[in-house]
């Protein structure tokens, strides 16, 4: 107990003294996670929308595959992307292995099914009358799509925030594709694992506090937006 209290106190000291190593790790984590969430959202929201509204053969199958991919383990993605990006790999000549870009690629693969699948759910729940109303009022296909996405915005936002939460807390991809290089690809989770292995808990605890604070912040943001949109409904 004494050990934990001491670690917490020292971690708090590190946070308040604006320790550059600590904050650089936080910066790498946030920038990589935000970039992968952005890329996954740009791809996943339209994909989810078209799966939800489209009438095509095999739609059930596509949704089942998406839902299965939600359980994709990070180490499997890590191995798969490693095989592609390693020197002997298909994309080895890009020289991306052990760079933040490699982590982004892996994380996008991880959360793309999350964003797409939750967008499918959010859009499918939207009343069919919204589509008809937009169309009868003269909206073209894209304007109609935008009207539906706007009505489903809260569910879609929830999907994006959940996806961000997933990537910021994952370790497998960051470790296997980033390589945990100090000052370059070391993220909060990989640093915590390293510090734990070294038996040095202060930095790990400080990063744990930051990680939880980020999670809390994201949830507060979601609640605030929910409240605001709740007013609209």
């Amino acid at each position, binding site marked *: 107990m004494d050990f934990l209290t001491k670690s917490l106190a020292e971690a708090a000291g590190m946070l308040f003294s604006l320790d550059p190593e600590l904050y650089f790790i936080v910066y790498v984590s946030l920038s990589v996670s935000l970039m992968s969430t952005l890329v996954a959202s740009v791809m996943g929201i339209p994909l989810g929308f078209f799966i939800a509204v489209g009438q095509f053969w095999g739609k059930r199958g596509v949704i089942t595959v998406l839902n299965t991919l939600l359980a994709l383990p990070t180490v499997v993605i890590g191995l798969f992307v490693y095989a592609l990006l390693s020197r002997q790999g298909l994309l080895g000549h890009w020289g991306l292995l052990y760079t933040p870009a490699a982590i982004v690629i892996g994380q996008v693969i991880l959360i793309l099914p999350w964003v797409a699948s939750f967008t499918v759910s959010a859009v499918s729940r939207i*009343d069919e*009358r919204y589509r*008809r109303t937009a169309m009868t*009022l003269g*909206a073209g296909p894209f*304007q109609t799509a935008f009207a539906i996405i*706007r009505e489903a915005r809260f569910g879609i936002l929830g999907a994006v925030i959940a996806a961000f939460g997933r990537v910021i807390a994952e370790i497998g991809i960051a470790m296997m594709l980033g390589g945990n290089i100090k000052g370059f690809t070391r993220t909060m989770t990989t640093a915590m694992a390293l510090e734990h292995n070294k038996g040095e808990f202060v930095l790990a605890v400080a990063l744990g506090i930051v990680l939880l604070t980020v999670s809390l912040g994201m949830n507060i943001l979601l609640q605030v937006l929910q409240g605001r949109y709740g*007013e*609209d409904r």
Partner: protein
Amino acid sequence: MTLYELSGLQKCFGEVKALDIAHLELSENTACALLGPNGSGKTTLLHILALLMPPSAGTLCFRGKPVIWRENRLLPLRRKVVLVEQHPIMFSTTVIKNVTYGLKVRGTHRSARKRIAMECLDRVGLADFADRRAHRLSGGETQRVAIARALACKPEVLLLDEPTAGVDTENQAVVEQIITRLRDEKNMSILFSTHNPFQAKRLAQKQIYLHRGGIDTRINERQS
């Protein structure tokens, strides 16, 4: 002039034939009532006339030209026809933004949008409701805002699916007044469905009876 001409028009949902009309013509600038019991095909017919749903078979002509059910060909026609649903749904924003929606998608300038929307809200007696959240309106108010939203698009054809169903007496009277005024102005063709034959007589110049998806010729002949 003939507004709509339907020939051999059918609509099936799986095994169920919801609509089967051998021939029907609707004239321009008249108010026409669609009567019939539940499940007679009134809503299905209105959705086809609003160009929101293609028929399973047959042809629909709009002002003498057959409708081609391809998205790029439908949009210009849809901008002439507006349907107000039986239970209209409001976008989750303010009343004024709902009413300006049709103008916005047509690229109307912001200041003109607001002016037209306010005029339309005034027509339905809800000018004071402009800044209210549309989801908080009562059923009758929602129906009136939906009519204002449709009128803002300046449609050539206004389709109303049971506009007074589930609406209190006061709002019913207001909706009937709006339809009467629009009919007398003769600027647009109006087609509405109703269960109420008295309302149909009061508001419409022509009545069409539907029964099990087809035109009930016996009643229609007796009428004429």
